[in-house]
């Protein structure tokens, strides 16, 4: 069809070098099982660093990493900053408040100005889906771009740290049943998780939510839709709860927090439907009593706090791999 001919800039190719190495990390889409496994293995090699007295490796010494956060974030930015520092990079944090209707020039000008300061990597969080792709393909292609969350589209480092957590606790992905519960509609995390789980070979990915919070046609990504929590988490090995924003009530998506909690909140009682050894995950920050009961969040099955710790190792892995790919490609030009 003519459209394919006219549109060669496919995202699958944007983040890889000509020989298939990572040079940006924009989305899970288009990355192979081998590459995702390499990220997890690399993260594994960094995982115990936090316990050592010297928490640094010199992999990115002399490199400048700029955290560009166009959207508020505390934990994600902190783990990216720690990851960069443990890789011995110089880090600059920029919080750029911008309305979603701000003109494109501002974003472009900002980025090109920072690029002129010889930055080697941008860690970008932005409220618009596709922002990281736009920067990598149109604005500063010679700076390695790490997507730290773009609109509803993707949050690939969060998904990879979740995969790392699952592999740590479950040993692998074969035969694994995973339920993702809650506000799928607005969740970039869920979208990246679905892709990662399918690529890594999980047996079943289930999405559990009322129809107002399920994006149309999302099952085509490779997921089964459940609207009843009890059915959705029956016998699953992993339950991933998503954060529910208060704004969802005013948008006529839900009648009340109480009704959501009654139907989809993860309580000890509901968790009993899952596999007896099922783990409970949450990308945070959690809303106690809205999507999860405190007893579950703090309980023995919860790995929510471990996720945060694994986030640093995973981000170190992605940053070092993308920088290496970017350097490799620059050397070839």
């Amino acid at each position: 069809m003519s459209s394919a001919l006219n549109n060669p800039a496919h995202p699958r190719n944007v983040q890889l070098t000509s020989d298939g190495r990572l040079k940006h990390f924009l989305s899970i889409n288009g990355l192979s099982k081998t590459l995702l496994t390499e990220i997890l293995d690399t993260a594994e090699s960094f995982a115990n660093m936090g316990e050592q007295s010297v928490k640094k490796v010199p992999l990115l010494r002399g490199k400048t990493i700029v955290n560009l956060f166009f959207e508020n974030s505390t934990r994600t930015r902190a783990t990216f900053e720690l990851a960069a520092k443990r890789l011995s990079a110089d880090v600059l944090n920029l919080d750029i408040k911008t309305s979603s209707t701000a003109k494109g020039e501002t974003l472009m000008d900002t980025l090109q100005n920072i690029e002129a300061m010889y930055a080697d990597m941008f860690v970008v969080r932005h409220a618009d889906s596709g922002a990281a792709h736009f920067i990598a393909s149109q604005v500063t292609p010679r700076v390695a771009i790490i997507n730290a969350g773009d609109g509803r589209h993707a949050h690939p480092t969060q998904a990879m740290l979740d995969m790392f957590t699952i592999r740590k606790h479950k040993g692998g992905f074969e035969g694994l049943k995973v339920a993702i519960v809650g506000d799928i509609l607005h969740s970039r995390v869920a979208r990246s998780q679905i892709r990662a789980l399918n690529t890594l070979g999980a047996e079943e990915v289930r999405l559990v939510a009322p129809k107002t919070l399920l994006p149309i046609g999302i099952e085509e990504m490779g997921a089964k839709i459940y609207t009843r929590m009890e059915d959705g988490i029956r016998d699953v090995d992993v339950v991933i709860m998503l954060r529910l924003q208060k704004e969802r009530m005013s948008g006529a998506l839900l009648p009340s927090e109480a009704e959501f909690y009654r139907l989809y909140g993860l309580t000890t009682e509901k968790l009993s439907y899952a596999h007896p050894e099922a783990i409970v995950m949450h990308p945070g920050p959690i809303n106690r009593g809205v999507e999860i009961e405190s007893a579950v969040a703090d309980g023995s099955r919860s790995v929510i706090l471990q996720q945060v710790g694994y986030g640093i190792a995973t981000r170190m892995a992605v940053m070092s791999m993308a920088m290496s790919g970017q350097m490799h490609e620059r050397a070839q030009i």
Partner: protein
Amino acid sequence: MRISILGGRVIDPAQQLDQITDVHLQEGQILALGDCPKGFQAEQTINAGGLIVCPGFIDLCCHLREPGPSYKGNIASETQAALAGGFTQVCVRPDTQPPLDSPAVVRVVKEKAELVGKAKVLPVGALTQGLDGQLLSNMSGLQGAGCVALTNLRHPVQDNLILRRCLEYAATFDLLVVFYPEDSSLKGLGFAHEGSLSSQLGLEGIPETAETLAVAQILLLVEQTGIRAHFAHLSTAKAVTQIAEAKAKGLPITADVALSHLLFTEACLESFDSNFHLEPPLRSATDRLGLLQGLKDGTLSAVSSGHLPHEAAAKMAPFSVSEPGMSSLEVVLPKMLTLVEEGWLSLTDMVRRLALAPAELLRIKSGALLPGYSADLILIDPKASWILNNQTGFSAGKNTPFWNQPLKGRVVTSLVNGEIRYNLK
């Protein structure tokens, strides 16, 4: 000026004509086809051997950006681009700044276009004052100033009583009303076709029902008021079916499709390329087939350029915040020829969709090579290979996926009122 265009393949759907013959022009009008009339002495002859000669195209929806932001384009640049694309007349959208809601602004646009002397402009006036859907525009005055139709574009009249009054008042003057059907609440903040792909990409969707619900509602009001209505830029297969059924019932309606929707689908959004951020959004492959089918069977009687030129910065932004629209006047011919090659329509039907049908639905004496008609015609080299770039393009807007791409089929000469106003060197 007396001109004879000799030996071209003359295609004129109005006369079911497709044959090698001559065309003779006199005093800005078509004088005769075929043999040279007795006593006619051409002052200039044009050898059209190997070329197609046909009525100049008429665009139903074109943005000239003047008055308004001149960095996006102006009457001179865009009417020149129109001629290079084979459009000898272009309908001008009313969302200029200020909008075309008063006879004075309409006259300014017309006079400026005449002064520039490229393609002729056919202003489409605002249906409501300021396009804000509240007060009736001065419809009779707009008609008097030369408006060929009225529209509120994609600013739907929210209040159905006001809409009904608009249609009744427009019907008083037998004015054509153009609808860009879209339910604004269902559209919400969306900017991509709602479906699996937009869900995966995290782009807010516009459901099919945003279009079909609006079409259904407008059709009922058309039936009630008896207004002549034209549905512009349909994007869904279902809307094509709705139009076909309403036509079969005998409603006085017509419909068109924009070039972009005949060529592309939502799949183009996968790389977040803002050139494909359009209104209405590019939809599914099934929808595209429905539109092509509608084009083939005539439910969609016309094709419009949907030309919306932008400066580079308008598109240099993440998809959702980029400005919608595509610059397309100059690629309509080569891309329509591709559809002809693919068997979707004949050359004659291509000319019908681009020239005769727009003239008929606008009720203007044009779009045909009949004696006494204004000599607005074009010469096409269907085999010419070229590339759209800074050397060949005239529009101020480079916001097209065809920029720097090879194209086949090109307008060689455009005549307006019997004058050669564009000639490819």
